[in-house]
């Protein structure tokens, strides 16, 4: 009603009224949206922040190596020493034509020779992965999971990952293994 009256009076007054109306609507909508969202925030610790692979779901398809936005993938191989270390028994991460069961590069599935080990006690070895070499291809993981306990697994390194708003690997991961986790479940580890 009021608008109509102003309308008759002058276009300037009408414009002014519309502007005030617009400002009020815009201000109100900001308040409403932030109110709704703030009520959804819950606990900051539960918020979905960081991309992590669920090692139980990952099928080591190899896309982690090729699909990360970084030149060298933020995905690296991890080893759970508590899960296994009997690699000479299963030979999972060795090439099928390995001459000797040691970590010389030519014997490993690993194309970059990133796997190192220390003899502990027959037949157990302690493993470390040279992170600067590993490219996250998952070849070792495939072997380890197919023949052994699956102590080698892939995970996104939090210090390397740039936390894309949408992880490019997650988009193509065939097993939907990559999801966001909250701040306190920093790493989805196997052990």
């Amino acid at each position: 009603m009021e608008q109509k009256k102003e309308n008759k009076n002058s276009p300037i007054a009408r414009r002014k009224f519309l502007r005030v109306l617009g400002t009020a609507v815009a201000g109100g909508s900001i308040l409403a949206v932030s109110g709704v969202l703030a009520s959804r925030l819950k606990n900051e610790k539960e918020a979905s922040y960081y991309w992590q692979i669920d090692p139980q779901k990952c099928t080591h398809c190899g896309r982690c190596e090729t699909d990360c936005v970084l030149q060298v993938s933020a995905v690296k191989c991890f080893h759970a020493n508590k899960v296994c270390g009997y690699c000479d028994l299963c030979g999972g991460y060795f090439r099928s034509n390995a001459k000797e069961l040691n970590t010389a590069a030519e014997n490993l599935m690993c194309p970059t020779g990133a796997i190192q080990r220390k003899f502990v006690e027959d037949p157990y070895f302690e493993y470390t992965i040279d992170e600067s070499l590993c490219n996250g291809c998952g070849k070792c993981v495939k072997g380890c999971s197919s023949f052994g306990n699956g102590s080698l697994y892939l995970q996104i390194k939090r210090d390397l990952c740039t936390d894309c708003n949408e992880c490019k690997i997650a988009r193509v991961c065939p097993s939907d293994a990559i999801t966001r986790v909250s701040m306190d479940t920093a790493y989805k580890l196997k052990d």
Partner: protein
Amino acid sequence: MAQNRFPKPDFESGYKYPEIHHAIPNEELLVAIDIILLVALMGIVSWAVIKKRTRGPILWVSVISVAYFGFFRKGCVCSIGSVQNVALALTDNTYALPLSVLLFFILPVLFAFLFGRVFCAGVCPFGALQELVNIKNYKLPKALTTVLGMMPWFYLIFALLYAVTRSSFIICRFDPFIGIFRLGGDIGMITCGVILLIMAMFTGRPFCRFFCPYGALLSIFSSVSIWKIKLTDKPCINCELCHNACPVDAIRPPYANKAKESRLRGVKRLLNYFVLLPLLILCGAFLMRSVSSELSRANKEVRLYDMVMQHEANPGDVLSLELEAFYGQGDSIEGLTQRYEKVQADFKLYTTIAGALMGLVVAITLIGLSVKRTRKQYEIDHAACVGCARCFSYCPQYKIGNESGNIAL
């Protein structure tokens, strides 16, 4: 898949497993710095364009923003992309929105509501990058800018559609500048980014004007903002200098609406709008709904469902990685079908809404073209103005005003 084939090791030598620490950067601190810097930089810009009317600080803010938000933080999460997270959080309450993302979304909107698009002026690393490379301002024809000017809205609508259906974050996926900030990435997108930057050298901010969905959102709020950029407190002498200086064509020239339309014609025009508006909205809704199932193929579940169905039809084919994972994980086809139908239903609903909104955008653009209102002098269109502050120094009147120092807020 992994099984426990060998029992847990049992040591005689008293061997202890090594403690393993995986590096975690100080993320909370970085997030805090992000937010503080965001507010501080927007504050500086607001002060520079509203109160001080000078461009100097804005250039510094642009440099800081490109260096910090761009190259150091690698441009993620940015305000532009946060639209998608917010839309998802509003429609899906299993998605826990981080506070930092909410702030990245709402703070620039709030500042736009108070002071105009000060975020765009130099705080947004994308805008800042384009601003810094700009050397010349060739004006584009009005017809072209009007048509292209609808694109950010379409982009926004599609981004929301794909976000709320949990299909994809297309703003992040087709981000032309992120590859430049990360010094690597998808070659196609980097090429687009470089092309846009070359264009940005010769015409103002092509990405902001013709693509950026967040800029479209901000323009709603800046057009009704509480404090507005004002070229000069002195009367405009219609010298046209500011108009030529503005990189984004935000300064509207004076216009005399000579043909005072008769009352009858005015009413007729109004009636036309009343027919046109719902018609375009309905058309849009109908068109988009009819392509809903094609659009839904962007969703992973839908693609998987199609693959599984195809495989079930001729089981002889080699399994793709997706199918291997699907059958390997022992997922049931019933479960997948349920998820598939849910996604399809979502798409039906949201494409209809999206189509209606797209019709609305077209209708508003058309109406905007036909409504001619009289302007006595050069006026800033606050929806389009990105607050770059270029125009001030061109205004001869402003110089007088500024020297005597009587600039009021």
